């Protein structure tokens, strides 16, 4: 991939966060470029969810910076933006797919309204247009159009994740954060969802940060991989490289204990 010449979309420098005297994550550095999928892997407690919160504007770091390539002003530290600016970014250029779909959806409004909400939030006031865009996206995430007016309460886990994805992608964000998007799903459902995500991300050229403990997921989705342990990055590189020829002893342990695929 030849992306080093352009500006990074997200630039993370010396990022640290502590919970009291415990390390949440420490001294993290990486860049993400347009269309790139970065996987963050590690066991629970390794700091990957903390990192995801830090870089998605949900948790203010103790040290370091997170800069995003804004459309107008270029790279800007998201924690130096005003709250309105940051919230605007979150509902336009960013998307967040939560591990628990209930955190990312409105469970008491229909699937169509869930998908259309972002359009309404940015000022779309034509019901017919919102509805047709929503149904387009329902199709794109391979859901039955009949589900348009149904409530998420009645959906399966896999459908809820599809709905979350559609809800986020409808405004064509440039960067999407995903926290364990397939955990808790049956293996067959997982595989279909991963295929879907991979297809959408590559077709739309969306950059993505995916956090997972599942190396199989990473192998399938991510271009680059970051391995975390105790709040620190122990190894990073191209996914295949890291998984096929791990350098760090911890990564070696991780790969040997979970693979073969």
């Amino acid at each position: 991939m030849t992306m080093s010449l352009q500006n990074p979309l997200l630039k993370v420098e010396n990022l640290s966060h502590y919970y009291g005297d415990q390390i949440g994550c420490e001294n993290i550095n990486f860049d993400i470029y347009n269309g790139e999928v970065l996987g963050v892997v590690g066991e629970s407690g390794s700091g990957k969810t903390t990192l995801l919160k830090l870089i998605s504007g949900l948790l203010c770091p103790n040290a370091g910076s997170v800069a995003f390539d804004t459309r107008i002003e270029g790279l800007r530290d998201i924690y130096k933006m005003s709250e309105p600016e940051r919230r605007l970014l979150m509902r336009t250029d960013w998307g967040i797919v939560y591990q628990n779909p209930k955190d990312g959806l409105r469970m008491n409004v229909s699937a169509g309204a869930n998908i259309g909400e972002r359009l309404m939030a940015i000022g779309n006031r034509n019901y017919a247009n919102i509805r047709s865009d929503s149904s387009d996206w329902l199709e794109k995430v391979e859901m039955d159009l009949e589900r348009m007016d149904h409530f998420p309460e009645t959906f399966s886990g896999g459908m809820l994740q599809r709905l979350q994805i559609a809800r986020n992608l409808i405004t064509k964000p440039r960067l999407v954060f995903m926290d364990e998007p397939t955990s808790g799903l049956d293996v067959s459902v997982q595989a279909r969802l991963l295929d879907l995500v991979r297809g959408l991300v590559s077709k739309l050229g969306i950059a993505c940060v995916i956090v997972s403990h599942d190396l199989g997921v990473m192998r399938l989705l991510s271009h680059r991989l970051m391995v975390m342990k105790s709040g620190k990055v122990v190894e990073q590189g191209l996914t295949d490289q890291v998984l096929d020829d791990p350098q760090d002893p911890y990564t070696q342990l991780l790969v040997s204990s979970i693979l073969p695929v």
Partner: protein
Amino acid sequence: MTASSQNKNTNGSMENPEILEGYNFAYLDDQTKRMIRRAILKAVAIPGYQVPFGSREMPLPFGWGTGGIQVTASIIGQDDILKVIDQGSDDTTNAVNIRNFFGKTAGVDTTEKTNKATVIQTRHRIPETPLSKDQILVYQVPIPEPLRWLEHRETETRKMHALAEYGVMHVGLYENIAHYGRVTTSYDYPVQVDDRYIMSPSPIPKFDNPKMDKMPALQLFGAGREKRIYAVPPFTKVKSLDFDDHPFTIESWEESCALCGSSNSFLDEVITDDEGTRMFVCSDSNFCKEQIEKLTNAPLLQNGDGS
């Protein structure tokens, strides 16, 4: 509008109940009135924004118009003429109660005639007769927060207002149309004031919403229990939320008022027997009376004021 601590009735055409001894003019002390007036001024300066204020306990229960009463008590002067309506009518229990309260504590003149009043306190209606720039309409508000049904936390709704994050309001409208083919909210229909703040018009029927737009009279809203005051200054744009392809509409009736024949007023339905026979009459009792007078071209009821 001046407030003083004297109980003089300078314009004494009304038979008032005996004035209560030992209480301030219009019940509230001057310190409190000043505090409320400051809140009102702020509210007028930021149309549609809910200004917190140090609401007091009043001798009427919270939820029964204490916000409106505190606003009225703070702006009313001895020369003012007060009209109080509830459900459009001057003689419902709540309207009578509040009118008596000001009769007893302020001794101001009261009236039922919309165009004679300088201050009109209302619950759930806007009078049918258009208001003028010399009048103030005071609304009683139970729940001032239009976002409350979608987000119940004050800490969050305040942020949504500050950032004008109002997309969720249209999610509600979208849901209505998706499920019922129309917006089903029929009263307390949310509006956007001066293209900025989303505001609850109080539980008036949506029939009354268009009257708020560019109204010459000052509109003040008091929510006593929730401790908020907000305002729409005269001639300010007030838009009911809708979609371009599903524009806001108001109620209409096939029937006309059984008493005055009016076909463009808000009608109350009255069940007249146990067979379910019903008739429709104007909810605005003063408007109805005036229409009848016009029709017969002679005053039907001599004793138009007060009682």
